[in-house]
């Protein structure tokens, strides 16, 4: 099966991915880039305009960005995705993809919006091109036949205003693999979207932005733009004889030259999520158990990369009797086992981080915990209150327990105290637990992910 191959390779590529990210990190400082291949083409970013790209409002009216507060009274992405699931049940292939539009900006100010995309398939001509060339376009102006008149980088450089182009976003191949794996997981197993209605926080929010420009009136004067206009006007009027020595007292200022920024309400459809991966690395976790819980976390991590790229942040915590945060997935699954087990230490650390960084206010928080179920705190005396605290802000907590062969048939400590606490019922929509044997195979793990993430309340 396709996903099985992907699964087998998942460790390899994550390994390479982390190394690459670490290298990127070393090279670019904070600019670790998780951008995914674009799924939506932007004609605006295409280098060569075609016959059908321009139109009257754009060409003739030059409509600038106006007060843009669209509250569309039509289907939301969620409704569209529901419809798509129904399609599959009706026996037709799914058609909607959740894509991203991505506009590179300076530094870390890239903007990403999440949009649905679909293709209306028709029987149309494909292009057959010469392999060494990539199509023809119209041209105008000087130049001999054969003369090169301009060039464009094959891979857009960072910060450059070019978008996807023709499938050229291949600079993050590692993540493409993770992306593929995530896509397969999403498609084949109907894993839910993080921004599901079941989650506590709505992932749509309003921002008030003063990006809109307007000439003549508005809230905030855009000084730079205004000065440009003033200068333009005065140059036009011939009042600036020497560009090097401008006498600002002599400039005429027309009311039309004043450029304002207008405050407008904009709705962002975004998913800002913080995911904690928590893993027990105590002595008893050696071997199979670690492999399994990490494997499951790899899959979840891949899926997150696919689904949320820039809108999700991940934190990695390992614990024995003490908990510590590690910087990346690589360290997360490579940390050597040692010591006894105190699950509450990890919970406490998560609570501390959330509180200290005030994460609950800004993020949807998810926590995935992997353990073999051992806990010195056998009744959850310390762990349960901390867990309860986590459930007060988290959107989902998923606990995976890999049972040892020798403890087969007996409930592990963690399983026992969680079940006894009644939290699984009380927080049925927030807390999920998946228990599997240490000999579980991949399909079992994926089945487990469904359980951990699904929207339906499971019993």
């Amino acid at each position, binding site marked *: 099966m396709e996903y099985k191959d992907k699964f087998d390779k998942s460790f390899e590529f994550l390994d390479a991915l982390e190394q690459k990210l670490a290298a990127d990190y070393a090279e670019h400082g904070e600019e670790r880039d998780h951008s995914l291949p674009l799924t939506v083409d932007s004609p605006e970013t295409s280098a060569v305009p075609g*016959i059908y790209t321009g139109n009257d409002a754009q060409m003739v009216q030059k409509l600038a960005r106006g007060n843009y507060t669209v509250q569309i009274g039509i289907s939301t992405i969620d409704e569209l995705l529901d419809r798509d699931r129904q399609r599959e049940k009706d026996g037709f292939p799914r058609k909607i993809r959740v894509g991203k539009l991505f506009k590179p900006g300076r530094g870390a100010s890239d903007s990403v919006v999440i949009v649905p995309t679909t293709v209306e398939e028709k029987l149309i001509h494909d292009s057959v091109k010469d392999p060494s060339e990539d199509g023809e376009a119209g041209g105008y102006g000087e130049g001999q036949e054969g003369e090169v008149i301009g060039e464009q980088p094959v891979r857009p450089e960072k910060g450059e205003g070019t978008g996807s182009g023709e499938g050229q976003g291949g600079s993050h191949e590692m993540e493409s693999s993770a992306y593929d794996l995530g896509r397969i997981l999403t498609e084949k197993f109907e894993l839910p979207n993080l921004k599901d209605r079941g989650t506590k926080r709505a992932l749509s929010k309003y921002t008030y932005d003063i990006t809109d420009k307007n000439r003549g009136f508005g809230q905030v004067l855009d000084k730079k733009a205004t000065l440009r206009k003033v200068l333009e006007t005065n140059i036009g009027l011939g009042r600036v004889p020497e560009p090097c020595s401008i006498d600002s007292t002599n400039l005429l200022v027309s009311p039309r030259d004043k450029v304002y920024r207008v405050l407008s309400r904009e709705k962002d459809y975004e998913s800002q999520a913080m995911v904690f991966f928590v893993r027990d690395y105590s002595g008893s976790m050696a071997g199979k158990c670690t492999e399994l819980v990490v494997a499951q976390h790899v899959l979840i991590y891949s899926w997150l990369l696919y689904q949320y790229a820039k809108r999700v942040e991940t934190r990695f915590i390992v614990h024995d009797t003490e908990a510590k945060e590690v910087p990346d997935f690589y360290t997360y699954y490579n940390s050597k086992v040692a010591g006894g087990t105190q699950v509450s230490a990890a919970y406490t650390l998560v609570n501390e981080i959330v509180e200290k960084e005030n994460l609950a206010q800004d993020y949807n928080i998810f926590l995935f915990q992997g353990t073999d179920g051992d806990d010195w705190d056998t009744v959850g005396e310390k762990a349960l209150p901390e867990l309860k605290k986590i459930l007060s802000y988290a959107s989902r907590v998923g606990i995976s327990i890999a049972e040892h062969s020798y403890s087969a048939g007996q409930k592990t400590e963690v399983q026992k105290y969680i079940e006894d606490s009644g939290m699984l019922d009380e927080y049925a929509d927030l807390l999920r637990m998946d228990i599997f044997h240490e000999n579980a195979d991949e399909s079992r793990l994926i089945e487990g992910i469904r359980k951990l993430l699904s929207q339906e309340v499971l019993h």
Partner: protein
Amino acid sequence: MELINQKTKKIMEGCKERAYDAGLRFGNETLEYIVTNRDLIELTPKLMIPTMYDYWVHDVEVLKEKGRYELYPNNPYETVINTRPAISFYNDNNPDWMNVMIFYHVLAHVDFFQNNQFFRNTWDYDFTGQALSDKRMISNLRSEKGRWVDYIIEFARAIDNLVGYHNELSRYDGMAQDSITVLDYYFDVFLQKVKKVPLSEYIKEVERYNKCLGDSPSVVEQVFFADVQQRFPEFTSNYERYVSVRKDGKQDIMQYILNNSESLNRGKNKWMKSIIEVVRKTSLFFQPQIRTKIMNEGWASYWHENLFLSDDRIKGHEVDFAKLHAGIASMPRVGLNPYALGIRIFQYIEELGDKGKYSMAYDKLSNRKERNDFDASEGRGRELIYDVCRNLSDSLFIDTFVDQEFVNKHNLFVAGKKLNQSRMVWEYYVKSRKAEQYRQMLQEQLYHPPYITVDMDRNANDVLYLYHHFEQKPLVNEYISNVLLGIEFLWGGPVQLETSEVDKNTKSVGFGRSVRRTDNGNSDKERRWQRVLYTMKDRKLSRKVLT
């Protein structure tokens, strides 16, 4: 969305008078609306028709456009729609002088819509009104049939580019003859193709017919065919079969399915037919627009330039106009701008007409200086551009008027794009300055759906056989499955599509490009095509190589 105010309407009416005086012709009633960006975003997927039927793909488009707008603010919309009365849209913050220019632009579009022969099928009715009643019908059906309505819309839209637009158009021109006369069938088909009679016998029959015509002109056919019936008893049935096949063959795929699908014609499924018909009509309505983009925009730009500059009401805004107009009508260094190209071709044609260059006398000249100096001062420029505007489509427009003189005059060339592997950049270069190649490049960019028909001879056992008449371009392979799935659903039985693809033995290099490997490992540009047959049966696609 609201109507423009009285003051602006008055400006518009003033524009109409001046446009009318200049020779533009359009229905006097027009509607102008002020729209916001929100309206525009919601209208775009519906091709600016506010009354167009609702469909979930439109919702996807709106959400996508909204996202795109946030990142790349611009407004990709048309502003005037072809209906009666003509409706146009204006942004709420246009100054008056700009509206004057836009009004002229819009009026020229309306003139084009209402006079160009390729729009004949849109002249007889109010499309927005029709669309509104269609929208209501679909919405009613949706309340009864739920999501199945959307499946039918989807499947119908999957083949709405294969509508027989030209068949439809020729019907309007009165040129189409759905049925062939008995006489024509007898002489043109039966004797020559069915019976394959020798020439001498054929001529004898012609003479016999002429004799009958002389003897009894009022009942010539009865007399003549009485004899034919005796000689060829099968003649009548042959003729009837030929007529029915020919009629079916003239139908586009959608029509054929509508008329012949047993599934659709069952009582419980009949509601689907009305939806398919709506999708077909809508597609036919927009076909002329996409086939006349360069002409239409060129025509509108030509007139807004001419009429605006002669309009006394805009004094003082010449510079504003010049700036805006230059933005619209300037040629990009690389790329195609239909406004810029269209207006230049119309101006070129006008010059040809004025100097009498659109003539045999001019064509016969081979001396460059004589050609340059030629001026018969015929002053027929305006007349000629009106003729062109009324009668051509983009394809003909380009083929007829983009000649070497035009290409030279405007310094045009075909820009190629090649990969420089050492520097990993795409290089744009001047590929050719020859008119022939420039024309070919333009033609390549024009809308051109594949020519696919129902093969009547191969339809058997409820199988619908679609035949792709190959034009050296394969179909987009990844779409075939879903389209055939939709057709199978509508047809209610297996569907086959015969098309051409690059032979598997030719090595594929990169996306959409194929070259054949030669023995020495080098690649050449030859492609070997093969006919393949796709079959969609029980929602499963299979492929078979035919040759």
